[in-house]
């Protein structure tokens, strides 16, 4: 018998029991689809976070005042005995050649008011360098001018402008921020949410003005942009050293953007794997289903198998027939599942365009490989049983 005949034999059995084949296939398809969809979601989350971080700027070192043994909480409580000052930021710029630009940040919230309309918003006190470090785009007007540290001027986010001014031109108008008058000199281009902060609702003012407004002597953060990614670690060490020298002790925490991003990515990768793994349990169940159906199929075709053996088909060939049958079932299910999973992801992207849902390549490859492997693995027992049938006994057996 030729191999083509053998394959036809296997295909005939699949066709002959259409419902049963379809059901086994559906089991695998559900498993693969859920794995693909979940890993797509995980991958989407990873891409989203990476995007958020790169929108923050590139090669950033974030300096936070305070240092504790319990480091996990440092970023949230930013009051330390020794102030992080604008002079510190200047020192970093002056003394570390690897640093291209430094932007100090003083942060607070306050009411912004224009002709009776009021909006509580985040106010960022910073310098001209902020625009380059964070890669802001300006809509109209200009940003805080270079070298200006203390002046009653402000640059507003897009949404803030539309809420306070409607369709009027805000440039040159006076607004009240926290009770003091500020002249609007620029409007930022729409930017959207960045790390949970809606950048379109932020007002930027000169850094010293900000410190005075919030009655603070310490900066919230210093952002430093390093010239090249290679110099990151060295620059980070220098930042801590320079500030330790100025403060008399090491009392700041410096984080590199990459380190923070890497932590996030690690967490997301573990989550994706865990959820994908839980979904993959259903593939095992689907495999068991295939095995069960194949066992039935072997026992139903005992006589046929006996006949095949009697005309000289080898054990290996019989084994092959049943393995191919199982593999066809499971890989067919795998393909269907892949299509369904990707389709569901597309549908999701359609409704939530901001969230990039797409299956990672490794998951697609893994899902197909696993689905074929499931078929072969769970098909092995029935196939071996078929291969080992004694031809005489098999032929003698009456069908139940």
């Amino acid at each position, binding site marked *: 018998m030729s191999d083509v005949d053998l394959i036809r034999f296997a295909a005939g059995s699949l066709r002959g029991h259409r419902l049963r084949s379809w059901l086994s296939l559906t089991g695998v398809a559900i498993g693969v689809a859920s794995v693909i969809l979940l890993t797509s979601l995980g991958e989407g989350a990873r891409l989203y976070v990476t995007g958020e971080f790169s929108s923050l700027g590139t090669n950033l070192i974030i300096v936070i005042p305070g240092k504790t043994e319990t480091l996990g909480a440092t970023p949230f409580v930013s009051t330390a005995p020794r102030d992080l000052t604008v002079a510190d930021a200047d020192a970093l710029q002056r003394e570390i050649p690897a640093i291209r630009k430094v932007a100090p940040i003083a942060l607070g919230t306050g009411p912004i008011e224009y002709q009776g309309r009021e909006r509580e918003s985040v106010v960022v006190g910073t310098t001209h360098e902020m625009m380059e470090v964070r890669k802001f785009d300006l809509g109209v007007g200009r940003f805080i001018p270079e070298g200006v540290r203390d002046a009653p001027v402000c640059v507003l986010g897009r949404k803030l402008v539309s809420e306070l001014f409607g369709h009027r031109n805000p440039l040159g108008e006076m607004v009240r921020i926290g009770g003091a008058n500020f002249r609007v000199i620029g409007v930022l281009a729409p930017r959207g949410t960045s790390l949970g902060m809606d950048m379109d609702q932020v007002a930027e003012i000169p850094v010293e003005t900000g410190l005075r407004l919030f009655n603070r002597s310490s900066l919230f953060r210093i952002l430093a942009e390093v010239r090249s990614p290679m110099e990151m670690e060295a620059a980070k060490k220098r930042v801590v050293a320079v500030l330790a020298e100025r403060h008399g002790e090491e009392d700041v925490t410096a984080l590199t953007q990459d380190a923070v991003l890497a932590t996030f990515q690690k967490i997301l990768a573990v989550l994706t794997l865990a959820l994908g793994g839980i979904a993959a349990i*259903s593939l*095992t169940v689907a495999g068991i289903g295939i095995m*069960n159906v194949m066992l039935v199929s072997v026992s139903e075709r005992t006589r046929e198998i006996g006949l095949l053996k009697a005309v000289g088909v080898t054990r290996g060939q019989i084994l092959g027939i049943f393995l191919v049958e199982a593999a066809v079932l499971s890989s067919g299910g795998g393909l269907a599942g892949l299509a369904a999973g990707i389709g569901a992801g597309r549908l999701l992207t359609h409704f939530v365009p901001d969230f990039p849902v797409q299956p990672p390549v490794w998951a697609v490859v893994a899902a197909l490989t696993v689905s074929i492997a499931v078929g072969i693995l769970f098909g092995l027992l029935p196939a071996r049983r078929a291969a080992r049938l004694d031809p005489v006994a098999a032929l003698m057996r009456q069908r139940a």
Partner: protein
Amino acid sequence: VILEDVLRHAWRAIAGNRQRSLLTMLGILIGIASVILLTSLGEGTRLYVLNEFTQFGTNLVAINPGKTETTGMPGAMGGTVHPLTLADAETLRRIPGVETVVPVVMGAAPVETGGRTRNVFIYGVTHDAPRAWRFGVRVGRFLPEGDPRTGSPLTVLGPTLKRELFGDRNALGEHVRIAGERFTVIGVMEPKGQFLGLDIDDAAYVPVALGQPMFNRDDLQEVDLLISSTANVDSLTARTKRILIQRHHGDEDFTITTQTEMLATLDRVIRVVSLAVAGIGGISLLVGAIGILTMMWIAVNERTAEIGLAKALGATPGQILVLYLSEAALLSLSGGILGLAAGMGAAWLLGLLVPALPVKTPIVYVILALVVSLGVGLASGLLPARRAARLDPVEALASE
């Protein structure tokens, strides 16, 4: 008697095809076991987190500065950026139903003594903090009562900090330098343990009046109200809000969080997450159900002649339906019971091997697992059973 007959028949059918039945059950077993294990983990986490939060008492209302919201009221009193102050806190003390008020200022600072230094969290609070937060003092006493606007240089250490600085020596009456200032240790707190991974015993408490200059601020990070009962929490927060808005010249520039509200939110979030994860695990249950459907379909096909005979002997379609439905249900339920045992066993083992991992199987889920597995059996058995019931006796008998 009839139920017994039906069950006996179903059992015989299941036992007659032992391998096939076991494999089918295995599908359901895996599904139920993974759902039970995952919900046990979810429930354990929920109880753990709730417990972590309630250890501070449920009668706590926290007020933090800052709020982002459009007010847009014409003629609203514009104002300065109003921080929360000690004076605000003292005013709230007069509201009926408020047992005590704890103003909080916090930050990180080095605590040193005898050449040892440790950077920890410093909480600037008042006499009533242990009462509001349900802390206990192990040795000595807490900060003395008195006007919160003044304070003596006294401090109470958390047990971890005490051990790190003094070892087994007595710390009472000793001097420590906190952020360079000299404080006398008057007490050591009882161990409270970790709060969501943060060691809250690694801290020092100082009078709020001294904490403010230490962190160079004259406002507060938080004001905690201890209320006498949670029954009137709504009217109380409304009143608090009114008073603070009035004090802040018409601005609602603060956020009030009640402990009950926060707990409810947390509870909801964790429930949703664990339900979602269990749902993903439940996909395998669906695949298992398809397995039952397939095997029952095959069984009905195989027993066509038998069914025809039964019908010829006067069995009604209803009886045949019940017979096959109960076979499917019995298969699924046995799988479910085994899966329940396996899932609970795995959860128990996990709790034993990783004691830090909170695991709890709620009784509701146990019952639910049984109901679901029974339901899965009935649902997946319906199609094959209906086919059996509708078989034409003459054709069925002739099919042999």
